[in-house]
Structure formats: structure tokens, C-alpha cells
């Protein structure tokens, strides 16, 4: 019967708020509200496959391991590299092969053990150990060895110049105590990594498919942080339900808000929201250049010219994607207006290209796309693309598959085309290298590998200076615009919605939320 009493009380509360209410009001005083005090609650779409940073795949749950594990340097929310466990950015030798880091001397692991250069050396060596088969070993393969130089200095020595590796640390690496992998086993890193990180959050509990809870690390090296006692990360796959959690105060911050609701919700009182362009999130139609009909460049060109990216961005993505025709977002320093402008929306031109191809009359393919949204739902976009292609005479059927399965098949070169969101650490080389050079994880997806791009990338690896890099990228983009291996829709925007009492939160250009310094107003 107590349920009934509550109902009446709530009805009266609702009645009180009704005069001011249209849609979506009256949430402010409701009794089921949850988040309060010092527990920061996040709601994100995906569950992690592991908490071990060297094997983590999905971007949104990385918020958890980035609170547990830290790195020598980090990519901050604005995409700027800054020191983390090191005192400063590394000194780089003239041959671009030796990186020297001075470590902070006030860092302890969560188990109280101080962090030294031996731990750093061990961390890299254990990650690179071939027997471990870490998913991320490939991108750090150019690290030849790590040398300690006293307890607080390390030299990382590369086998050839490879500047981007610093950018990859934040997402795919961490520092753990020497010998810890042998002592605890890899499953410990995967399932319940207590005490082995240096970060502000100590692993407390993982409820599969529901949530992961971290508690405050009292010995965190930045004494002002964290401002929360507990961090609860809930996994809520449905867009609408995440929104509901936010409104019902079952979450303080949500990731990947429903695009359709974002604008109206971010303006609501008591809520805040922000969208930022990212530099590392491709939304792209990956075409298998080795298979018909994409074995003919003119079909690929036709596809590229048939897609109305502006319209997709506006109506299918509700502004959550920045349209662009090449892997360079407008805001990025490597954007090249000329290359970008060399592809556009023009159905007549698309028909023209199709007519020149050997598949002029029978251009048809199957487009695979993720059944459950990863970062952003692509189903509506797929339907729109299907109809836009239809308009120029390319038939396309849609096939929905789980994202990891689809990627698996694509990597074997089995798919004709895959519409997918891909992410990288906010710099251009990672995805370009993985997709368009030989023997890389994604090279079979496209079946396209241009030696010219590999050469240009090599030049880029040796450069640390943006001004010097820009012309190199311009050449790469030109080459891609010529060959049209994929059809880019645009770059994903990162967006979050949060409650008004959340302090110091900023949307991360690296997509994954960064909540280490976030607090809650009482």
C-alpha cells in the first residue's frame, strides 16, 4: 500500500509542476532521484570487453581503464599532448629514435608501492611480449627497447622514427608494477585490476553488462583529485534509456546522447551539453576494392559522388557528424580544402562515372552495418545512403551484424562494403596506416594498399612538426581523393549531456569521457 501513498504524493508534485510544463518537465524534485553526494555516475552505451588497456577495443568504456591506469604523457580533452606520469614532455634525440622521460617521484601505485623507472620498463616490455599477444602491440612495435637511467628516468628507443606512438599511449597503454602480470595473471588485469594502476580510481566491482564501480584513490599523486568518492559507470545500450537515466538522475553524465534529443535537452534547465568535433572518428563506408563492383574505380567514384553528405549530417545524424569527403575534418590542422573539394555531391556526375565502369548496368552490393550502434547509430544513414545510391543506379542491400563480428569478417576481406565508425587517437596516421598500407589490421577490408601512401606515412612518422607535416598530408589526401578507396561521410562529433551540478566537465575530442577532475556540487 505504501506504493499508493507515494503515487499520490508524486501526483501532487507533478501537479505542482504542470502549469510550467510542456514536454519533459517536472524531473527536478522527484523522489527516485539517485545521484547525490560524492558518487559520480556515468551512463555509456557499451560494456568493456576488458579493463586491460592493451586489449581494450571500444572507446566509450575506456573511461574506466583511463581512471585506473595512466601513462607517461597524455592526450588531453583538447587533443594537446601533456605530461602525466612524466614531469614534462620527452626530450627527443636528433635521430628521432630516443625519447627520454623524467618521471614524477611522487607517484604511488594504488597498492602503495612507489612507481619507478623499472615499472615503466616492465610495462612496455610486458605489453610488447609476443606471447601475450596484446591487441595493441602492433602500434607500439617500433619500440626497440626501454632503458632505465636511475629510478626516475627512462629512455624509450625506437627501431625507426615513429612520432605518433606518443599519441597512442592514452588509449592503449598504461603503467603497472614490475612483475605484476606474472604475479596476478592477465585475467586480473582484464577483470579486477585492483592496486596495479596509478590512477585516481581503484577498481571495486564489475557487474557484467550493468556497471563498473571505482572508488577514490586516497594516495593519488595529484592531491586535489579526484573530487568524487565513487565513480559508477553504467552500461546502457539504448539511446533513449540513457537519456531517461539522465533525466531521472540515475546518471550525472551520459555518453553518446540521442542525436535527435541533444539540442532540446542541452537547453533544458538543470542540464548542460556540448558537441565537439573530433579528429579521430571516421564515419565511413569501407569499400572492398578487391571485390566487384568496387574493383572498378569508377564505381567507387560514383558512390563518392552519389552521397549527399550535408543531408546525411543534418537529417540522419542530426548534426552529430561533421561532413567531409576525405579523412581530414575541417577543423583539423591537416585539413586540405583543395583535396576535400575535389569530391562532392552530384548525382549526374555519379551516373557519369557509373556509366564508364564495367558494372554500369549491374552495380549492386551488400552493405554490412553494425546492428547495435557503436558511438553513433548508422542504420538511418544506411537507409539514406541506400536510397541515394539507388538514385544513381547502384543497388545496395543492407545487412546488419554485430560490430565486432562485422569487423572480424571485414578484416578477413569477406565483406563487400562495411559502413562503420572507426576511431583513432586524434591524429591522422593511425587509421590511414591501418587501412591503406600492406599487412595492417584493416588492409584486407579495403584491399587497397598504395605504396605511395606508405612512403608518405613513413615521412610523416619522422616528423614532429605540424607545419612540416601538412604538405605530406596534402599529398596523401590528394592520392586518396584520386583513388577513392572508401567513401567518407564525415567525422564523428563527441557529445555529452550532463546534469547542472556536474563541475569541471568538458567533452573530450578523443571521444572517451575524461572524468578524473570532475566534481559534483552538493
Amino acid at each position, binding site marked *: 500500500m505504501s506504493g499508493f501513498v507515494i503515487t499520490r504524493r508524486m501526483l501532487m508534485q507533478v501537479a505542482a509542476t504542470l502549469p510550467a510544463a510542456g*514536454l519533459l518537465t517536472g524531473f527536478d524534485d522527484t523522489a527516485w532521484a539517485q545521484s547525490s553526494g560524492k558518487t559520480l555516475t556515468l551512463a555509456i552505451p557499451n560494456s568493456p570487453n576488458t579493463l586491460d588497456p592493451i586489449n581494450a577495443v571500444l572507446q566509450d568504456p575506456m573511461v574506466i581503464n583511463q581512471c585506473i591506469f595512466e601513462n607517461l604523457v597524455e592526450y588531453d580533452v583538447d587533443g594537446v599532448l601533456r605530461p602525466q606520469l612524466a614531469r614534462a614532455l620527452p626530450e627527443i634525440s636528433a635521430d628521432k629514435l630516443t625519447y627520454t622521460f623524467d618521471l614524477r617521484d611522487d607517484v604511488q601505485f594504488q597498492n602503495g608501492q612507489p612507481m619507478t623507472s623499472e615499472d615503466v620498463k616492465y610495462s612496455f616490455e610486458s605489453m610488447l611480449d609476443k606471447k601475450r599477444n596484446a591487441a595493441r602491440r602492433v602500434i607500439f612495435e617500433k619500440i626497440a627497447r626501454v632503458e632505465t637511467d636511475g629510478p626516475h628516468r627512462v629512455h624509450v628507443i625506437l627501431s625507426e622514427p615513429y612520432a605518433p606512438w606518443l599519441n597512442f599511449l592514452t588509449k592503449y597503454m598504461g603503467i603497472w608494477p614490475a612483475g605484476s602480470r606474472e604475479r596476478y595473471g592477465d585475467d586480473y588485469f582484464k577483470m579486477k585490476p585492483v592496486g596495479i594502476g596509478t590512477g585516481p580510481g581503484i577498481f571495486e566491482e564489475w557487474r557484467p553488462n550493468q556497471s563498473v564501480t571505482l572508488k577514490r584513490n586516497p594516495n593519488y599523486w595529484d592531491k586535489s583529485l579526484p573530487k568524487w568518492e565513487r565513480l559508477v559507470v553504467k552500461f546502457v545500450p539504448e539511446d*533513449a534509456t540513457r537519456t*531517461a537515466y539522465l533525466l531521472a538522475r540515475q546518471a550525472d553524465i551520459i555518453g553518446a546522447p*540521442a542525436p535527435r534529443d541533444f539540442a532540446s535537452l542541452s537547453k533544458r534547465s538543470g542540464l548542460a551539453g556540448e558537441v565537439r568535433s573530433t579528429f579521430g572518428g571516421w564515419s565511413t563506408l569501407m569499400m572492398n576494392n578487391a571485390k566487384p563492383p568496387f574493383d572498378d574505380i569508377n564505381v567507387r567514384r560514383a558512390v563518392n559522388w552519389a552521397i549527399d553528405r550535408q543531408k*546525411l549530417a543534418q*537529417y*540522419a545524424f542530426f548534426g552529430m557528424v561533421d561532413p567531409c569527403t576525405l579523412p581530414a575534418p575541417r577543423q583539423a590542422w591537416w585539413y586540405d580544402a583543395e583535396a576535400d573539394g575535389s569530391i562532392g555531391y552530384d548525382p549526374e556526375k555519379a551516373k557519369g562515372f557509373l556509366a564508364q565502369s564495367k558494372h554500369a548496368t549491374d552495380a549492386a552490393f551488400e552493405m554490412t552495418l553494425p546492428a547495435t550502434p557503436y558511438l553513433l547509430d548508422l*542504420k*538511418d544513414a544506411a*537507409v539514406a545512403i541506400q536510397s541515394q545510391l539507388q538514385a544513381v543506379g547502384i543497388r545496395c542491400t543492407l545487412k546488419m551484424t554485430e560490430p565486432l563480428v562485422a569487423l572480424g569478417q571485414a578484416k578477413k576481406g569477406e565483406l563487400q562494403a562495411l559502413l562503420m565508425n572507426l576511431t583513432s587517437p586524434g591524429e591522422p596516421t593511425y587509421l590511414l596506416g591501418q587501412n591503406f598500407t600492406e599487412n595492417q589490421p584493416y588492409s584486407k577490408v579495403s584491399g587497397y594498399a598504395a605504396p605511395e601512401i606508405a612512403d608518405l606515412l613513413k615521412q610523416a612518422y619522422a616528423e614532429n612538426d605540424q607545419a612540416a607535416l601538412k604538405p605530406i598530408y596534402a599529398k596523401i589526401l590528394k592520392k586518396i581523393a584520386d583513388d577513392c578507396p572508401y567513401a567518407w561521410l564525415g567525422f564523428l562529433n563527441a557529445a555529452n549531456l550532463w546534469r547542472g551540478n556536474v563541475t569541471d566537465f568538458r567533452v573530450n575530442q578523443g571521444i572517451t569521457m575524461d572524468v578524473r577532475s570532475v566534481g559534483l556540487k552538493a
Partner: protein
Amino acid sequence: MNRLVRAFGGPTGLIGGAIVVLVIAMALLAPAISPFDPDAVALDRQLTPPDLLHWFGTDQSGRDILSRVIWGARPSLEIGIGSVLVSILFGLPLGLVAGFNQGSWVEQVIMRTLDAVAAIPTLIWAIAVVGILGVGVSQLGPLAIGNQTKVTILLGLLYIPGLARIIYVATLVEAQADYVAARRLQGVPGWKILFSDVLPNTLSPVIVHATLQIAVGIILEAAISFVGLGVQPPAASWGNMLAASRNFVFSGEWWLSVFPGLFISITVIGFNLMGDGIRDVLDPRRKLTMAPA
């Protein structure tokens, strides 16, 4: 008119029959009556509320919801009716043979096996099995089986125990009737009695059960599509339209969820009323048939 009312077991039965006829007609005539191409994307007309042009509004891709609802009747009915046909195909002979061989090991084997299979909860298994087989086209030897066929067959198989038991019970009763004994004494072979005498007399409960089971099947189809394992978008089905509408509940585009749900409900009401009516006519004693799922 009065005769028509009686044929459907009363006015509600007639209403049910009328709904069913209308829905089936709607599905069959979809190409003629649907005002728009159900798959025609028109991004700049997306999420239009119901108006004179789009009576039920448009969805997030600007597709006409009325047209999609009309076309969406097809997979619903195909799966609902098809699965029942599959269950009759297998369940009818099983039930007949078991009921006609009462007391023999044949009866024991068939009925005990069916009892065990009846202990399979339909929806969970349907979801799990489609999940395992995958929503794509499955290759079974030379046959390529699409997901809709897969769901149809699967539901049909899961319906078998319920249907076979009804036929079994009806056959038991018939097989003990005096006329069957008389026919046996005349030297008519068993199978002949089974098909020419017993079978026609078991059809009434089968028809009633089948009609009500179609109603259940339509809801099951919607549920399976709702979790993304049934009819795959962009093809329209009432279930996957509802699933897609979930993203627009908060922003208030009610027409996305209301109309497909309404059509499921009305169709299922139609089959239920018709089934009840037919039962009142054909099988007035068995008031308790009800197929939960």
C-alpha cells in the same frame, strides 16, 4: 446478415472476421493501396507529424508511416500464418497417429517426446536460436534460408506440441466412437478410417487453435523483431518499426510508435475475436482453449 453473424459465432466474432479480412486484404493489396513507396527515403521530410499528405506522419528517414504500416502487415501475417501451417504440417500427423494408436508404444514415444518439447519456453528459445543462427541468410545445404523463413519455421516447430496434443485428444475421443469400431469390423484398414473418418472430426479444434495461435504468432514476431532478431530493416515490419521508434519517445514523435502498435493490436484483436467466434460455432464445449506464450 444474420446467417453471417451466426457463422462467426456472434457479432464480436463477425467483427473479428471483418478485421482479419481487412488486414489480409490490406497486405495483399499493399502495392495498390499504399500511398507511397514504403522504402522511399526523403530526408527533408523526416519526422513530419500526421497531416493530409502523410496520414500517419513520416519516420526519421522521411518514409511514409502509413505505407510502411500497410506493407508491414505482410511479414506479420506471413510469419503468423506460416508458422501455424508449419506446426499443422508436423503436428497433425503426430497427433493423429498417437491418438489412433492409444496404448501402444507409438503413442508413448510421440506424446512423451512432445511433452518434453512442450517444456520449451517459446519466446526465449526463439530469440536464442535466431540469435545463434544469426539474422543473416543461413545456408542449409543447397537451401538459402532467410531470416523471416527461419523465424517462421522456428515458431512453427515450437508450436507443434500444443497443436499435436489438441489433435491427439480429439482423435482419442473419435477413435473410441462406436462408428470407428463398426468400420473396423467391416474390415476397413486403420489408415483409411484415420483419414476419412477421424481426421475430418478433429479439424474443428484445430481451426480454433490455429486462429488463436496466429494471434500469438503476430505478437511473437513483433517481439522478436523488436529485439532486432526478426525482420531486418530497412524492410518494414510492425515489430522493427516499434523498435526504431524507441529513439523518438523522448523527443515526442508519438506517431512513430503509436501507429504500428495500434495495427498489431487491432490485427491480434481480430484474430482473437474470430477464433473465439469460430470456437463458439464449431466447438462450443471447449471454452477453455487459450494459447499463452
